[in-house]
């Protein structure tokens, strides 16, 4: 079975939503569309207060090469451009009051597109990596290195999340064609879809669809293990190549992209639909009616949760994304972006809200770390102010997957320490 060394086996908790077909939520009346839904520079607003916009109309222009345009997800009137909090920070938001008509602007669909046309379309439609980081896909698909392998990451190793699995099951044809377009943009005639072996149903449907559609691709089953979907670990599982420390996957000739990114690429290329919506999972013990939903970017979390039966009395933590790498927030006013994979409300039994105790030196974190680091040394170094020591033990190589803190019997916030270490090391580096 394809896998990587180390890693952990958290309970999946996917059963609550794994069989739930992707549904639609009541349309939002007001959307707050963040202009920074990607890595790089914030998009520049091109509409002002009082303008009327349509669905798919450009409201933010990409600023520089590593950036992406932003499109309206509703039709209606712009009632303001203001600074608001996002899941990962803050940026300018375009606030639009919906008129309920959802009149849409689309681009011309492409028939048998060339790789250049696909790349241009991906850039124009504002497609970014929807796995969480939000790296502009057009930039990712035009690397300097020679690429020989393209992998779609359908591992979905985060507990609770099932949206990628549902997309692969219900939109198998669209998804595979989207992935084919991406492979084509890279100049490749085949690609891999890596799926964890807890999603055999999805893998079977993908296999059947590949045969029907005559797409040259391979479904690779990987062992269900966290973080199977981490880029370097997935590349190792599929190709047995190791990405060198500090290098990008392109250095070993591999590009990895995400399931929903491929779906967005399909819609952009074949139907001309811009990137303004995504599928996300609403789950956790604090949600009354969990499920997978099509959500327009800019919809506030409070509205989504209200449509799912509201916040349960026993919820203690609200998380954007998965429970291992997601961001906890206490405000429901935050809008969903292209990269929000899930909204979780965890109860006291599920989530950890306590405090850590002393390290007992058991090295469980070292045995769990998929990057083979020594999290406890980094923790110890940075808490005693030794940044050089933290750097020596590989703090900068940490992928922040959270495996170490998950297994720690003393429940120490190891990832938080390593983030602090990274920040201090960077600050020290820039001072020099």
């Amino acid at each position, binding site marked *: 079975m394809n896998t990587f060394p180390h890693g952990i086996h958290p309970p999946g908790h996917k059963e609550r939503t794994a069989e739930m077909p992707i549904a639609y939520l009541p349309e939002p009346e007001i959307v707050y569309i963040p202009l920074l839904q990607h890595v790089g520079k914030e998009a520049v607003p091109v509409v002002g207060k009082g303008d009327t916009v349509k669905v798919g109309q450009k409201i933010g222009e990409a600023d520089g090469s590593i950036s992406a345009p932003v499109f309206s997800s509703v039709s209606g009137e712009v009632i303001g451009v203001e600074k608001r909090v996002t899941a990962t920070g803050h940026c300018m938001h375009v606030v639009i009051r919906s008129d309920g008509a959802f009149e849409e602007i689309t681009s011309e669909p492409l028939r048998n597109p060339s790789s250049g046309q696909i790349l241009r379309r991906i850039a124009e439609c504002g497609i970014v990596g929807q796995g969480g980081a939000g790296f502009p896909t057009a930039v990712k698909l035009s690397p300097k290195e020679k690429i020989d392998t393209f992998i779609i990451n359908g591992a979905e190793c985060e507990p609770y999340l099932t949206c990628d699995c549902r997309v692969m099951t219900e939109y198998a044809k669209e998804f595979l064609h989207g992935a084919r377009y991406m492979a084509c943009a890279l100049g490749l005639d085949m690609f891999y879809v890596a799926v964890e072996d807890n999603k055999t149903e999805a893998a079977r449907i993908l296999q059947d669809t590949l045969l029907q559609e005559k797409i040259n691709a391979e479904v690779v089953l990987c062992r269900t293990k966290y973080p199977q979907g981490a880029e370097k670990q997935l590349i190792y599982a599929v190709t047995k190549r190791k990405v060198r420390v500090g290098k990008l996957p392109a250095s070993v000739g591999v590009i990895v992209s995400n399931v929903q990114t491929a779906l967005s690429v399909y819609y952009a290329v074949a139907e001309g639909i811009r990137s303004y919506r995504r599928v996300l999972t609403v789950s956790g013990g604090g949600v009354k009616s969990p499920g997978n939903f099509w959500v327009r970017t800019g919809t506030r979390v409070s509205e989504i949760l209200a449509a799912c039966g509201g916040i349960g009395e026993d919820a203690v933590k609200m998380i954007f994304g998965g429970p291992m790498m997601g*961001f906890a927030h*206490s405000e429901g006013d935050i809008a969903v972006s292209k990269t929000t994979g899930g909204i979780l409300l965890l109860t006291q039994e599920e989530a950890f809200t306590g405090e850590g105790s*002393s390290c007992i*030196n058991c090295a469980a974190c070292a045995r769990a770390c998929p990057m083979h680091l020594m999290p406890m040394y980094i923790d110890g170094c940075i808490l005693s102010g030794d940044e050089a020591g933290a750097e020596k033990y590989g703090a900068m190589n940490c992928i*922040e997957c959270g495996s170490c*803190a998950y297994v720690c*019997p003393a429940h120490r916030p190891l990832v938080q320490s390593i983030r602090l270490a990274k920040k201090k090391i960077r600050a020290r580096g820039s001072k020099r």
Partner: protein
Amino acid sequence: MKNLTVSSSPHIVQKSKTTRGIMLDVLIALMPAFVMSVLYFGYHVIINAIVCMGSCLGFELLYSLLLKKDFSKQAVRQSSCWDCSCLVTGLILALNLPRVIVVDGWNLNVYRTMPDISGVRPVDYVAFSGDTIFICIIASLVAIVLVKMLFGGIGKNFANPAATARIFVFLAFASMTYTQTTGLGEWLPASTGATWLSSGSKLTNNQTMFFHMFIGNRGASAVGETCMIALLLGYIYLSIRKVIDWRLPLIIVGSAAVMALLFDGLPRGLSGARLVNNMYAHIMSGGLVFGSVFMATDYSTSPNTFWGSALYGFGIALFTMLIRVFGGYPEGMSFAILIMNCTVPLIDKWIVPRPFGYTKKIKVKSGAKPNTPLSADQKGKGGVAV
């Protein structure tokens, strides 16, 4: 909105595994050895265990309260002693002591009537030993305050508290810690009176002796170390619960067996079955198995990487056999553990795993072509596919 907790990821943890849970697992794993030692050495072991565990808990609580200068109920509740690691130290310590220690001049013991023949040791006729209780308390003080808490508490101590306290007792009360016979000796005629090691390893190598060594019916100066079956049960339990790395005890026992061969068996000209028997006897005598399962695997005093542990285990086996064969003491396990404990910081400094995808920094000679890409057949080794 209602009060929601905001904290750094990950938001879920493995709740089934906690510090206290691990310590309780170790206590459970020690239970067979404890029960067998009570069966073999009598009720004194229960008293010793209660005194050791109680005083270890008490000393840790007292130390943390004194350090904070806060004696409120909350401070008691927050004290580090409730993680139960002090109970593990206490129980291991009790199992590492003889059942009764009689100190000349203290005379706090109650004796049963001794038969009036010469050669009878008073230590075998103690009904209740006040001396032992005092020694248990002193040993607990050494283990918890001197070795563990002064260095910063759990996870920070460099030496194994129980091993150090045992050595302290054996050195400070050297003349009093006799090898003691098992209580079952009266029922099982073949029971060996003295240990195989202290008798100069010259006892007859017959099968009954090995059987009694395996079930633990032998004399010993540490009550918990005798029964191999109980120790094996504990080892299997700890390995299944993934509390200890199952390889470390095997490395220690395995390398000790090889060194018994090299240092003791071969130089004495033994061959064939006698050589193998000598090896078995070395493994089953003394605290080798007990120490390698319960003391060498102590988290804070053992290395954090597998290869570090392997080196550490080899070192323990080496020093144990050196002390046994060439040294003045019949038993060297706790000394060996303590010696190797001192090397752990160095081992952990030297042996650090390489990050995933680590490659050696290639020194580029001036004029040479830098960074020649590796060919595709080297893929998986950090090579660049071309």
